[in-house]
Each structure stands twice: as C-alpha cells, then as structure tokens.
C-alpha cells in the first residue's frame, strides 16, 4: 500500500473525513497521527455554555407540575390527557435544547483536530444508544453524550459503563426509574392498597444484550429477571408525590423500591446490599471475556469491515482483557491491526459519515450548519434518533439502499450548485481522497461540463461514498 492510501485511510476511515491539508499533515506516519489523538485529555468540548442534565430537567419541572395540577383539577388520574396546550409545552421546551446540542456536535465534528477521538465518541454514543423519539430523552440525549460518554472514552470501559447506566438519560430511556422490587417496602405498601407494582426488565436486558456480554453469551431469562431485581432503585432525583427526592436530574438510589436480599445471576451470588449490588454486577460484566469479545467485534466492524476478520477481533479482544478494559490500549490494538489498513474503502459511509466528510472536505462555514443538520434527517440518520437501544446499524448493507443513494446524489448536486464558484473539484479531489483517488473519477471530473457538475461528480464518486 502506498503512503498516500494509508493517509487517506487514517483520515477517512478512522477520522471523520479529510479536510484540505489534512493528508499532507498526516504525511507518512498515519498510525502515529492516530496514536497521537489517543494521548491526553478526554475530548471534551471547548464550547462551554450548554446546560447540564440537571439544569435541563429542572427546567422541565414547572411544566410537569402544571400538567399534574391541571389533571388533578380536572379530577382525572395520571392517565387523563392534558390539554393540548399543556401537552405541547414540554416538547416546545425540549426541542431547542436538542437542536443546540445536535448543532454543537456537528460543529465539533467539522472542526475537530482529533477526528479519530471524535469518531470514538460517536461510536460509544451509538453503542450506548438513547433515542430522542422517546420524549423523555429529547432534551438530554446531548447532555448524556457530554456527561457520560465524552469524559470516559479515553478511560476504562468499566467507568464508561457505570457513567452510562447511572445517567438519567439511560435510566429514563429504558424505564428503570419505574421498576419496583416486588418485595420492596413500596411494593408491599401498594399491595395493601390492592395495587401491584413490580419489575420492568428493559434496562437489565439491554445491558446484558447490547452494552456488555452480547446476545449469544448464554445468559437466561432468569438472569435477566435477577438483574432487573438488582437494578431496582437505580433512579434519578426529582419527580412527584411521596417518591420525590434527591437533586433533580442526578442519579439517586431509592432503597424503598429496591428488591431486598441476595440475587443469583450468571453463576454468581450477589449478597451486597442496595446500590452496591448493582455496582458489583456491572463490575463483573465489564470484566467478562464475553464483553471484551462483544466490544472488539463491534469496534472491528466499525473500523475494519462489515464481517471483520477473526484475527483482528482476537487481537482487539486480547488487548481489552490484558489491559483490564483500558480503552486507549484497545484502540491502539485496532490501529496496529494490519487488516485495518487493507482494502481501502471497505465500508460504505453511513449518512452521518457522509455528511461529516462532506462538511469537512468542503470546509463548510458555521452558518451552513443548520441546513446541514437537516440533511441528517433527509438522508435517514437524524442526530440522536436511532429509534432503538441497539443504536444505528453498522453494516454497509444497512445504508447502501437505492433510495438512500439517490438522495445522496441529489444532496451532493444541491450543495455543488451552491458552492461551485468557490470550490474547485479537481484541486480538492486529491486532498480529500489521497491515494484512493481513482483514474476513473479523475477522468469524470476532468470532463465535467461545469464546475458544479465536477463537484457533484467528486461528492458522488464511489471512493467518496466509502471510507
């Protein structure tokens, strides 16, 4: 492989797409360029000023209170519909918060000098997916990424896992604040009044299946149920009625809904009391070999190929186990995998990949960000909205559909019409594609009938659609 191809792989496959000048800066040390991004602090945002989860949820409290009071005044219970005006107030409050966060994320991706680190943030955010089509997380999907993911992507997996499972966005997304131990004090009191309260196993199941061990790791329904009992009480502050307590928008353990007693799961006995029981299970899950393998497979699928070579998975999983889940060591093993440097353009870009690389490659100015944000939805990948706790799928065949391709072409053409007088396709192409710039694309750009058409042909070239 030529130096030129390796630099393009570093910038486009590991990073978020080359900007003019990036490939020259990477030069003949693409691995060193990537390793350099793993050193140093977590990729926090330089831009302060976005509100914390606590601030966002505190701002929602008066709206929720007004809704409760209106219901009570109407004599209805918790399920009585609020007035249309009241029902709209919550989304009206949350939506601008969502947009601000999505835009800040886009801006960071377009401007980042550590695009590999930024891609890793996106990878983990998708691994631990929450989705804003659930209203409860509309305002806090962004703060979840800022507070639970970003600070930990250069740390240990175990700390990342804990930060995620204790974050209000995850607890709300997977309903855990509702789950009540059947023998907890609260459930017993409710039973005396003829009401049944009990488990919701959503979070427990997805932690095992999606976040840690993986679906084929051999756990049973009984393990899921036991783990759901372990996690009862993992909740957040604020709320209503007698259960209202704790700082709004922060993790709170509620002993009164926790299922008492020891739990057996995954062939181990957990006799710890209260929150310590869940901490112990999560620590064991983080250290399980199945987790190392599951994470290694997902990383290899994201960075190497749809069906990653077994050798690469072994190498990455081995680094995970040997380092005790030290993530930079895991990423370093990935960089050192020869398979990652084979087969340029092995992955078809997701819409997100495509738009980040388009924005970076064309050096789009900040004022075009709102429109670019709209393009994510248009191409089928609205920010923070994967629609499922499994996150966005990560195989080429999930994204290379016919309708999807036509939309990319139409979008490229619209962008090219707008920018053709300021961007020269023939000059840009080698800077964005490096050694992957093919003779066929060179010829098609050279023969274009207009500067706009030339730019469209660059943005729709097979090697620009892949990474």
């Amino acid at each position: 492989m030529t130096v030129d191809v390796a630099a393009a792989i570093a910038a486009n496959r590991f990073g978020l797409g080359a900007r003019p000048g990036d490939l020259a800066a990477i030069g003949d040390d693409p691995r060193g360029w990537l390793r350099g991004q793993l050193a140093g602090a977590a990729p926090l945002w330089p831009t302060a000023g976005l509100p914390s989860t606590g601030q966002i949820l505190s701002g929602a409290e008066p709206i929720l209170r007004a809704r409760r009071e209106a219901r009570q005044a109407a004599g209805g219970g918790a399920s009585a519909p609020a007035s249309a005006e009241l029902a709209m107030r919550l989304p009206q409050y949350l939506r601008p918060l969502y947009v601000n966060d999505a835009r800040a994320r886009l801006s960071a991706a377009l401007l980042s000098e550590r695009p590999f680190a930024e891609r890793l943030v996106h990878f983990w955010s998708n691994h631990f997916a929450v989705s804003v089509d659930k209203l409860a997380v509309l305002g806090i999907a962004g703060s979840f990424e800022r507070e639970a993911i970003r600070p930990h992507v250069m740390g240990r997996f175990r700390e990342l896992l804990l930060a995620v499972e204790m974050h209000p966005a995850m607890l709300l997304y997977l309903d855990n604040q509702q789950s009540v131990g059947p023998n907890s004090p609260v459930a017993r009191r409710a039973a005396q009044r003829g009401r049944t309260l009990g488990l919701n196993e959503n979070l427990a199941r997805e932690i095992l299946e999606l976040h840690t061990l993986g679906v084929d790791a051999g756990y049973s329904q009984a393990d899921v149920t036991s783990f759901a009992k372990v996690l009862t009480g993992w909740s957040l502050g604020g709320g209503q009625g007698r259960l209202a307590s704790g700082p709004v928008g922060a993790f709170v353990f509620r002993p009164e809904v926790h299922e008492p007693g020891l739990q057996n799961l995954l062939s181990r006995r957990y006799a710890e009391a209260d929150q310590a029981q869940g901490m112990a299970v999560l620590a064991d899950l983080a250290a399980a070999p199945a987790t190392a393998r599951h994470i290694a497979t997902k990383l290899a699928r994201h960075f190497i190929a749809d069906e990653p070579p077994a050798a690469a998975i072994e190498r990455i999983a081995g680094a995970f186990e040997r380092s005790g889940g030290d993530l930079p060591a895991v990423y370093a093993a990935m960089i050192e995998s020869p398979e990652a440097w084979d087969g340029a353009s092995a992955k078809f870009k997701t819409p997100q990949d495509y738009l980040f690389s388009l924005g970076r490659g064309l050096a789009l100015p900040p004022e075009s960000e709102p429109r670019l944000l709209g393009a994510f939805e248009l191409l089928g990948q609205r920010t923070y909205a994967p629609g499922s706790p499994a996150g966005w799928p990560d195989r080429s065949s999930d994204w290379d559909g016919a309708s999807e391709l036509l939309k990319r072409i139409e979008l490229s053409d619209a962008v090219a019409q707008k920018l053709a007088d300021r961007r020269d396709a023939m000059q840009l192409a080698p800077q964005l594609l490096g050694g992957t710039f093919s003779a066929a694309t060179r010829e098609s750009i050279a023969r274009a009938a207009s500067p706009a058409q030339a730019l469209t042909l660059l943005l729709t070239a097979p090697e620009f659609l892949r990474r």
Partner: protein
Amino acid sequence: MPSHHRSSSPDVPGSQPQRLLRRRRFLQLGLAAGGSAFAVRYAFAARAVTDARFVFINMRGALDGLSAVPPYADPDYARLREQLALDAPGTADGSLPLDGHFGLNPGLSFVREAFDAREALIVHAVATPYRERSHFDGQDVLESGLTRPHATQIGWLNRAVAGLPAGAGHGAELGVALGQNVPLVLRGPAPIASWSPSKLPAVDDDTMQRIADRYASDPLLSQRLGDALAADHIAAESAAAGEEPASTASTAAANMSAGAAAGAAGAAANPAGAARYLETVRAAAGFLQREDGPAVAVFDTTGWDTHFNEGGAQGQLTQRLRAFDGALRAFKESLGSTWSRTVVLIATEFGRTAAANGTRGTDHGTGTVAFLLGGAVHGGRVVCDWPGLSARVLYEGRDLRATTDLRSVTKSVLRDHLHISPRRLDAEVFPADNLPYIEDLIRV
C-alpha cells in the same frame, strides 16, 4: 443543502409531474443509448402473468397480541392483565366484537370492518421459531425466515420472489421496499427497489448520466442507481397519473392526523411522523397498482415496545394502533381495484408477557398475533389453536404459548396467492422444517 434551489437553471425541478417528465426523458435517453447494462434495467415487461400482489408490514418492537386481539373470554385474561385488560364487546371501554372469544382492540376499526367483509383474518398464538427475547435477534429471524439469528443476509421474501412463475411480467424489480433502505426480509439477489419521498431537487439528466457512467465499473452502485431511478419513475408516474387515489385517501388522512394529534406528546416530538405514514402507503399503492410494477412491497412500523404505560381501551397502545389502522384504511382506498388481488401480512418479532409488568406495561414474550388483510384473503375468521392462559400452559411460566409457526401462515399465502411452488418454499424459502401448510387462507 436540502432546500437550495437553482434559480440560475432554466429547468428548476419542482413538482412531482415535472420530476416525472425529467425522469422519463432520462429513461428514454438511457434506453436510446441501448445495449448498456444500465439502460436495460428500465425495460418493464409488458405482460403480467401473475397479477397477485403481496405486502408485508413489519411491526417492529414486539406487538402485544393480547391487547391487539384480546381473548376477553379466557378465564385467566382479566386477572393477568389487571388494568391493561380490555373488556368484552358492548361495554363502555370494550373491545370490538369478533367471534365471541376474541375481541379487537378499539383502535382497529378498519380491521373490524374488513373482518366483517371477510377480508381480514387473524392468526392468534402465533410466533416465529425464535424463543429468546431480544428484539434484534427476533426481527432477524422474522425476516430471514430461518430458525437462528444472523444465519443469512437474504430475506425470505427475496428468496420467494426469485421463484415467481417464469415470464411473470413484473418490471426489472420484483419487489419494492418503502423506506430509505431495503430491510432484511426483502434483501438479496432478486432485484428490489426502494423508495422514500425526497424533498431534494432532482438532478439534471446529463449529470445523472455521467454519474451512471462513473458507476458502470462498480456493480453495487450501478445496480442501486438503476433501481432508484426506476422506482422514482414509477412513484412520479403514479403521483402524476393518480390524483384519484390521493384524494380518496384524504378522508382517512384527516382521520389519521386527528388520531395522531390525540397521541399528543409523542407525536409532537415528531409531527411529520403521521403524515409520512400516509405518504408511504400511497406510494406503496402506486407501485402495486401498475401492471408491470413489483409484485410485493414491504414497509416497517415502529412504536410497539410497550414496557411502560401501555394502557387499556384509551391507552397509548390503542392510540398507536388507531393511527396504524388509519394508514391501513388509506392503503385500501389508494389501492382501488388492486385491493381485490392483494394480501397484506402484518407480523411482529414476538409477543409480550401474559401478565402486566410492574410499570403498567408488558415485557418481551413469545406468542402474539398476525393479520392477513386484503380482498384476496378468505377472512372473517380467527385461526388459532388457543392454548389458554393458565399458569401451567404459559410458555416458561410467563408468555402466551405459540401454537402456530408464523412460517406456516406465510408459506401458505406464498403458495396459494403468489403461486410459488411448494418445492421452492420447502427447499429454499423456509427450508427443512416440514412445517404444515394451512389450507384455505386465500379466496379461490
């Protein structure tokens, strides 16, 4: 960016008919060039041998069959379901009457009408062979048609349409997915189109031809582009020619938006959602009405994962079913006379727990319902070997036991409606299980 317009261009793309003209011109251009593999893709055969149409709608998220089609007469139902239980027909918050044992969720008024017209058939206590409780693996099994997850990248419907009778006059594409991408159920070697509405201006013919030329050496991209342009052509043509279906559907559209508005907060987070449902069913109808169009169509619906606050007769699930039911009504109206040759199979990856969980919802389970709708269905019946809901028969002590394999339903429809040969069905589509066929699902 998406909303940019080319004021400098003499032919600014605009409405659908304009778009259609542009596409048609391009197609002619492509055909005139002749011989190239790219142009050949648009050759729609003139003669249809089978005019049967089949639609698969995937309800992703695990639909609660016990709330969609409540067995209100089962002695254990009300006890297990607590406040989620739907009452017998005839009461204030009761279910809609079906057959004296099962009712229908009050949101499903169109399905009820179709049932009365003998155009809806319900299969209860049905499931795929998957017996774990992961959505994602469950959906994989539902779509692959095999017994284990992640065993293939080819869906059962792709394997089935590859066996449409020789000479069947469908165009280049045998099936169409209404969505940005083709879901697993329809993925595979048989040519498939996908289509979703675009708000972007069309690209001029010369640029498109150059892109196509560049893709000539890239088999995947040239196939995808060919499929996309062919699908766009069909969609634009039916939009231009068929103002009728769009307008006959408008009443249902109005009903549906009203239902969605009642869904309040959830819909408010994504107000375009309800409208997009309608655009999808209309486009699907446009494809299926064409003589040379695809024989099968698929699309997805979501929002059925009711862990929390599922609700009863006025609850969240009922609201969502009502919006979906409105889309089905619009689909029938858009299809016009094609409805009489159509079978719609509606299925989900698995059911939900028989008992309500601790948060007024239900967790992942096993047995559930599937629906067959359409003028070609021998309907007005609930087909099921009801296992009951007593503690000793519940699967693993918690779920409705499945007594019918969904693949039996599917393959019987494929055999009797699309006339796929049993040999192909048993060897390739749902291989090696010796599953029985269910007779008489389709009107003769």
